[in-house]
């Protein structure tokens, strides 16, 4: 069982193995932003693209972080500072928050997505 001592289980302690991984680094933050619709750039599951693609990914990420910060009433620094990471780690609903702006508004093209399989 999960350990608790109070009658109402208010002190229930989940095991460390069942705790969500905290969002504490760039990769986790990228995954978060992509998962909840703040960024089109997917988490890097394979080798990172080199050259100009890296710069566009970074710029897109900064924009995504700023959008997230503005929505959460944080200073829109574009940096993954402590308050931003705290906001990302708060309990939340799994439904995406937002839709990305139309491609014409993006200043840099997003990285190409991995193919999803045969075209329908």
């Amino acid at each position: 069982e999960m350990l608790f001592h109070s009658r109402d289980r208010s002190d229930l302690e989940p095991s460390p193995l069942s705790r969500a991984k905290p969002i504490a680094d760039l990769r986790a933050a990228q995954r978060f932003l992509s998962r909840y619709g703040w960024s089109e750039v997917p988490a890097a599951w394979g080798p990172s693209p080199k050259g100009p693609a890296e710069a566009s990914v970074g710029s897109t990420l900064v924009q995504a972080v700023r959008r997230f910060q503005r929505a959460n009433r944080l200073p829109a620094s574009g940096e993954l500072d402590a308050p931003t990471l705290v906001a990302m780690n708060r309990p939340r609903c799994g439904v995406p928050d937002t839709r990305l702006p139309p491609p014409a508004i993006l200043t840099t093209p997003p990285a190409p997505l991995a193919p999803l399989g045969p075209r329908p």
Partner: protein
Amino acid sequence: RVRSKRFLQMLLPRPGRQQEDTWDSKAIRAFSKKTLSWRLVGEAYSSQLSVDEQRYIFRLAFRMWSEVTPLNFREDLTSPGATVDIKLGFGRGRHLGCPRVFDGSGQEFAHAWRLGDVHFDDDEHFTPLSSDSGISLLKVAVHEIGHVLGLPHTYRTGSIMQPNYIPQGPAFELDWSDRKAIQRLYGSCEGSFDTVFDWIRKEKNQYGEVRVRFSTYFFRHGWYWLYENRNNRTRYGDPLPLLTGWRGIPTQSIDAFVHVWTRRRDERYFFKGNQYWRYDNDKDQAHTEDERGGSYPRLISDGFPGIPSPLDTAFYDRRQQLVYFFKESWVFAFDVNRNQVLSSYPRKITHVFPAVEPHNHPFRSIDAAYYSYAHSSIFFFKGKAYWKVVSDKDKQLNSRLPLNGLLPKRPASEKWFDVCDVHTSALS
């Protein structure tokens, strides 16, 4: 690749539903039927709460949305699963064939599919209504059902649709903006009423001074709402069955309510069919006997000679000390002091209360006549609409208005908000 594809399908409708846009599109579609079924899936109970507790909380969560929309929700335990509109379940990690994996305790606590199902992360510490720790299952359920119905996230303070969980006291309700958001998808609640009235209460303040307060009630079929005029909504948790709040009167379809209030008299009557009851405000139930030892209910023809039955509606005019009774296209003015109908009555409703705008009049079979202390005006209800009787104030602003004229009709839902039915199973 398969998981990514299935994740993207989260943004698309389930097979058989209406085609729709992504979550935050302004053109989001909604359920097209008014009564939706739901079920807590048997193989997906939470390990933290009893099954009864889980079902109770979900029933309450659905009811909260039903109290502000024309939608009704009923728990369906027997139909084939594929026919149930909304299925709810708990899971951990990979769960219930869902493409979105839960992340363990912390961060993501639940997700929902528009016009579809709701999944809760059972690694979270969900707590019942009575607890002020952990994550309120009720609050999360109300939020996720909001998604199922078509609402996206918002960062507006006070909204139930904020993406992050906001720890608060155990009590929370849908605020004005959340109500209007869901009503943009499903419309406002409309419908006719059996009777509408203000109930007067006399109270003493701490100085011993008598204060008069009033409460506004709407009756429809077998249930009623208290309307909070200062909050522009019905009381949280309404409607309630007539049986529980108004003891001793018929349990449904009341025709009329009249409060005869003079210096010497303070009598409240309910009418149904050919009978009427007098209500005892102190004992909060209908009188069983009158002053002469006769029993209630009494025949209308005995207590109000000259008044026909059954009635459509009635109201008491305090200035003239007359009760106006309405039946079909006729109105009867009854003098409570002489206990008889005025000699010039009955008269056509259209003559006593003429239309200000030609042909804009209920004409006959009025559902409810209501004097409102909040608005200092008389209103006639019929169907989904109301007509306001020209008041002294209206005449001061426009002297050409006819005395007792009826101003053009308006939708009742635009003046009294969120008087919404719930499914009959939710009334107990």
